[in-house]
């Protein structure tokens, strides 16, 4: 397997793996936030704020994979 083929396989698969991880993380965050809001509806604003921050942190990992893909994409076709 040469360098181009490795990149061509690795980049999409890498993004997919990162997306799986982020998806699991986001699911957990959403689950926790929804439960917290259900238990304490009066704290909805604070919980949502914290949820958005943590969701952004979790989602950033996929974005890093995405940026990496765009950085290396030009090298696939040589």
């Amino acid at each position, binding site marked *: 397997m040469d360098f181009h083929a490795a990149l061509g396989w690795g980049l999409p698969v890498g993004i997919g793996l990162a997306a799986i991880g982020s998806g699991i993380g986001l699911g957990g965050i959403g689950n926790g936030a929804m439960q917290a809001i259900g238990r304490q509806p009066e704290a909805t604003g604070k919980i949502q*704020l914290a949820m*958005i*921050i943590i969701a*952004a*942190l979790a*989602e*950033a990992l996929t*974005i*890093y994979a*995405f*940026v990496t893909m*765009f950085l290396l*994409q*030009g090298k696939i*076709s040589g």
Partner: protein
Amino acid sequence: MGLEFLTRVRRTTLWVTAIAALWSATYTTPRLGLAVALGAAWSLVNLFLIEKLVVGLTGPDRGTPPALKRIWLALSGMVALFGAGAVLLSTLPPIGAMAGFMLPLATIVLKAASLLVLGSRLWPRVLRAGPRALGVALVIAVALWAGASLVTRVIANQGTTPPAAHEPRAPGAQPQAAPGHDAPAGTETHAPGAAEGGHAAADEGPQKFANVITVLSRAFPQAEWAHFLHQYEVVIFSLFIAFLVCLVAWLASRRAKLIPSGLQNAVEALVESLNDFIVGILGPKFGPRYVPFLGTLFIYILAMNLFGLIPFMDSPTSNLNVTVGLALVVFVYSQYTGIRELGVVGYLDHLAGNPRTPLSWGLVPLMLPIHVMGELAKPISLSCRLFGNIFGEDMLLVAFVTLGITTLSFANLPIGLPLQLPFMFLALLTSTLQALVFTVLSTIYLLLMLPHDDHEHEGEGQHAH
């Protein structure tokens, strides 16, 4: 705008169609004229059927058997009409037929726009002063002339530069040179760079939508100023957006009233909610001092993100340089805040993890590098997140526009299916959310730098209650 409006649209369209069909039949081929006429007729019949359908569904006699019969007739007529449209597109020149289809729609849009303009307060003010009216007319004439010559130049340059000549790598990769602003910039954007040699590498990577500056640099591939504009397009767009934001702020605060209305009301509501939001995080003591910086950050980033959705415009935040700049500003400002609020010793103490016990003093060699790394990671994550989201959103739209063009490519049409529409709403959502996330994270970074002893006491007090 009721049924009377539609009758007027129909009358105008008939006249315009007759003129356009005769013109194209005389100056090009008779088949093209026929295609224009039939296309316009198709579109008019379609409009008529839609009108029947809507009247049958919402009219005063809805639900009665004659109305139901009319609805069924309209629906079956539409099915037959679409079959006829397919036959029309495949037998006659599709360009003419598409132009014919567009004629009634263009008439409706122009008529509605002129109704809006005539009804506004601006129109009498323009007309009252003679020189002003003349100036407006001149501006419109010059804009039309410049736009027309630009379009012809772009088309001419597209024809003369064969893409395969300087792009041997992927000659068939771009979508078939579709004119129209919906098309993503194909290989033609390489033309200015390749013509001057050595710049082609700078344009490599995925292509985005064509914007004003790309169009200009394609129209004048040899001109020095067009190349300059193309190189600095991100800076130009972000300065322009900053100017727009300043303009809105100036307009809103020009005649400030105690009881706000209109623009002043909207801007005040936005500023007030931003103020409440940031003061809610930073606390009443430090909050008001940082509201101007963080609020401006939010409004500016939001404007930059949304700017890319305007046709012929580009969002500067889809370029890594802009987001790195913004993140560096936040980084420097939060470090400066830390040094100013905590003092140099307090700042170093904060970086060392506030060592108070012998054990934590022992951990300082471990904690200091970790904290420094954490501080340095903040701007990287901020900038990459914003860039990745906005750039990815642009790429998604480009991919679906390309898909829409490829689905209709068998008919060789200059247009495509608007498959990107649902994703534009998604883009609206991500633009707002990413501006919010950037602002919230900047606020948190500032909060971490501020002395938070009183906060902890407050928290303890609340727990005790």
